């Protein structure tokens, strides 16, 4: 069998040693170089920019929703005795409000959070962690980015043409009888196209993990980030096609007026709900598993501790992936038979087990670690706190009797924000800070980043904890108005969203400052042991000078000197007292 040495002496020209960010020429050349690149690192950075733009758009929509809720819409008598409508802060009609939260939900879910961690950080980090030169199918990787962009353009078109007010779930029959159905077509097509992008990324990562691990790297030598992304990819590949066919059918229903879901022609709208949630429940694990994947890295590296229960953490990812396929019915307790509901309720509790295993393992890892209070660690702690609340409230919703009361209230809204934002987005922020020095070769300002993290934490809880209370008091979701008794809680929530916005702006400022004039990053600023820390910051074009070989476990902090670090900065821990050793 012929194996090519990584560096064939003659063929090794100098430009392969340049950092991947090095410019290849003038302005136009550089743009062309990025737009046609098949380098996983550049594609990862391109995804990062794309999803941050989506996050911004979705965020602005969320702020308008919160501002509209500043006061209830009321018809009151003015001094002259005429009735006037007060409390319309932003939108002149309920439809405007409905469009804003649909826009928010659809953009955040399909354009931001689903591609976020896998496509942006995963693309950048996963091949490096495996010691590979690239993902398995680099051209498919670039293609998937373009597919993402085209899908997003469809979504933008739907918005610019006047928006969609169906909610991000596009429930039938509403979505097939909406008067603005041509925009619904654009939106569902967008989701269909975005699904392909997600499938391609997933396929790429699965094959990369199977076939491109560095020599000597067994499955259990992989960093846990890779395990998490691998499990996510399996869900992406196996669940997204069902969403694809669902929204494709929905699109065809709208274009050709056929009746598969539309009861007007004899179709079955509940079938739509089954199809939709068969994807969208697993999809919530497409969103959270990558967050958990990042968590294991943040906790272990910034506490300089061998991860507790490596195999449990690894297999719980696969466990979550498997269970996630059989619990979709818990979104339809009110739309299906009692027996089905009871079964789905029971299954739903199962899914909490692997999630809890992870949280316990992270906590155990922190125990007696040398914790560095960096921004990534701060976000890891925030994640544990918020995700626990989100997961536990999921159990309330999974119990039939409580869900009958809480279904379609703000309690659900708070629950999923605690898991998706408190979980995934916090992990994403932690991950961006963790790999920022590697990606851009610059350090960020730790103090200001911590200020940002604190604002985000406070803002988040102010915004969403109030919504748990609103929900239990009976505030229904998706309404532009409410009874006046709820006003103070709604206002508190809106103030929280402002604090959040300020926190994000602080982060943005930190990133811009870092790019503009940050200190040059060392190759391994945190003393990490996985392979991405063995190459330069930013990595060279072909990732490694020599094909890396696995010499130690990625979490062997007890007896491995981190590569490329100053021993004074990252000393090995004191040897364990006799009798406790290996």
């Amino acid at each position, binding site marked *: 069998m012929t194996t*090519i040495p990584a560096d064939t002496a003659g063929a090794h020209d100098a430009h392969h040693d340049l950092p991947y960010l090095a410019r290849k020429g003038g302005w136009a050349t550089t743009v062309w170089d990025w737009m046609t690149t098949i380098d996983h690192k550049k594609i990862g950075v391109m995804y990062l920019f794309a999803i941050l733009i989506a996050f911004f758009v979705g965020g602005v929509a969320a702020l308008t929703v919160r501002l509209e809720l500043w006061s209830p819409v009321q018809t009151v008598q003015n001094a002259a005795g005429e009735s006037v409508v007060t409390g319309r802060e932003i939108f002149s009609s309920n439809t405007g409000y409905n469009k804003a939260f649909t826009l928010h939900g659809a953009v955040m879910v399909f354009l931001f959070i689903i591609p976020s961690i896998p496509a942006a950080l995963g693309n950048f980090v996963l091949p490096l962690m495996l010691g590979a030169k690239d993902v398995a199918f680099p051209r498919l990787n670039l293609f998937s980015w373009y597919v993402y962009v085209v899908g997003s353009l469809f979504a933008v078109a739907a918005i610019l043409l006047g928006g969609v007010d169906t909610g991000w779930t596009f429930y039938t029959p509403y979505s097939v009888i909406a008067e603005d159905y041509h925009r619904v077509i654009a939106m569902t097509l967008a989701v269909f196209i975005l699904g392909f992008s997600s499938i391609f990324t997933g396929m790429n990562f699965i094959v990369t993990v199977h076939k491109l691990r560095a020599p000597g790297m067994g499955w259990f030598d992989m960093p846990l980030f890779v395990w998490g992304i691998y499990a996510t990819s399996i869900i992406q590949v196996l669940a997204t096609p069902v969403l694809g066919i669902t929204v494709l059918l929905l699109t065809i229903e709208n274009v050709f007026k056929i009746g598969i879901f539309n009861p007007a022609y004899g179709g079955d709208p509940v079938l739509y709900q089954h199809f939709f949630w068969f994807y969208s429940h697993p999809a919530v694990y497409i969103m959270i598993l990558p967050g958990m994947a990042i968590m294991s890295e943040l906790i272990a590296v910034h506490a300089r501790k061998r991860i507790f229960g490596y195999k449990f953490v690894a297999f719980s990812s696969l466990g979550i992936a498997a269970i996630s396929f059989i619990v979709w019915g818990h979104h339809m307790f009110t739309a299906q038979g009692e027996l089905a509901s009871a079964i789905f309720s029971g299954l739903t509790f199962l899914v909490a087990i692997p999630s809890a295993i992870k949280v316990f393992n992270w906590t155990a890892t922190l125990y007696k670690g040398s914790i560095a209070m960096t921004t990534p660690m701060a976000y890891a702690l925030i994640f544990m706190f918020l995700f626990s609340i989100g997961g536990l409230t999921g159990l309330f919703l999974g119990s039939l009797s409580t869900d009958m009361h809480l279904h379609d209230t703000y309690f659900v809204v708070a629950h999923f924000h605690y898991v998706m934002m408190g979980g995934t987005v916090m992990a994403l922020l932690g991950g961006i800070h963790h790999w920022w020095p590697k990606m851009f070769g610059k350090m960020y300002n730790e103090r200001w980043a911590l200020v940002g993290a604190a604002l985000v934490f406070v803002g988040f809880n102010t915004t969403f904890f109030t919504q748990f209370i609103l929900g239990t008091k009976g505030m229904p979701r998706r309404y532009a108005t409410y009874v006046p008794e709820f006003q103070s809680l709604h206002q508190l929530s809106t103030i929280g969203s402002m604090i959040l916005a300020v926190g994000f702006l602080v982060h943005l400022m930190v990133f811009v400052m870092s790019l503009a004039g940050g200190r040059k990053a060392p190759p391994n600023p945190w003393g990490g042991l996985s392979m991405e820390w063995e190459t330069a910051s930013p990595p060279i074009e072909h990732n490694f000078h020599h094909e890396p070989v696995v010499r130690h476990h990625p979490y062997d902090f007890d007896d491995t000197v981190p590569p490329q670090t100053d021993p004074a900065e990252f000393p090995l821990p004191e040897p364990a007292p006799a009798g406790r050793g290996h």
Partner: protein
Amino acid sequence: MTTIPTTGPGAGVQASAEPWERYTHQPHWRNREDEFEGAKLGMWLFLSTELLLFSGFFCAYFVLRHFYPDAFRGASTHFLDWRIGAINTAILLISSWNVAVAVRAAQLGQKMILAGNIFFASLCGVAFLVLKLALEYFPKIQKGEVPGAFFSYAGGHGYDPSPYDPIFLSVYWVSTATHGFHVLVGVLLLWWVGWRALKGHFGPKHYTAVENVGLYWHLVDLIWIFLFPLLYLVP
């Protein structure tokens, strides 16, 4: 698609050799075996997504047939001619056999047998599409046997349409059209492979594209084998 390296292990091979003999692998793979296995794994993953996509149609079919068993029976026998379906099934089965032979020919380095079988299979695909369009789709559109709101079939021949006929036709049109689109893509892929085969791109050591397009073609065939009885042979 394939870049033939001028340096590296393949470089020593004589310039007169066929392209497949000079091909090594793309630079990010460690060796040719890994590259081939990786591409095949990717293809299997893709096929599983295709299967899941079509499982949506099957699911919708069973649910709706469960709701309207009589309409499905009536509409199937009245609107669809099982003989056309059967001929198309036979055509696809034959083409699948050709594709299998082509893969074997690639492994044995028989260039002309490879290309011949690939092109023959693609002709089968074209025949399938022509039959479908000429004998089913166009007449159906003319007679108004179309789904949903556009259904305008006037009846006749002693058949009185059920109000749920359009539902059956919805499933029929959507699933066969999606399948037909896959056949079309398959034909284009077969042309691409055939053309590359003629240029000598495939041989015992390198036939990834033949293998993968072959797998795709078998899947398209397999899906039709399920669609045919479900749509045309409702008892």
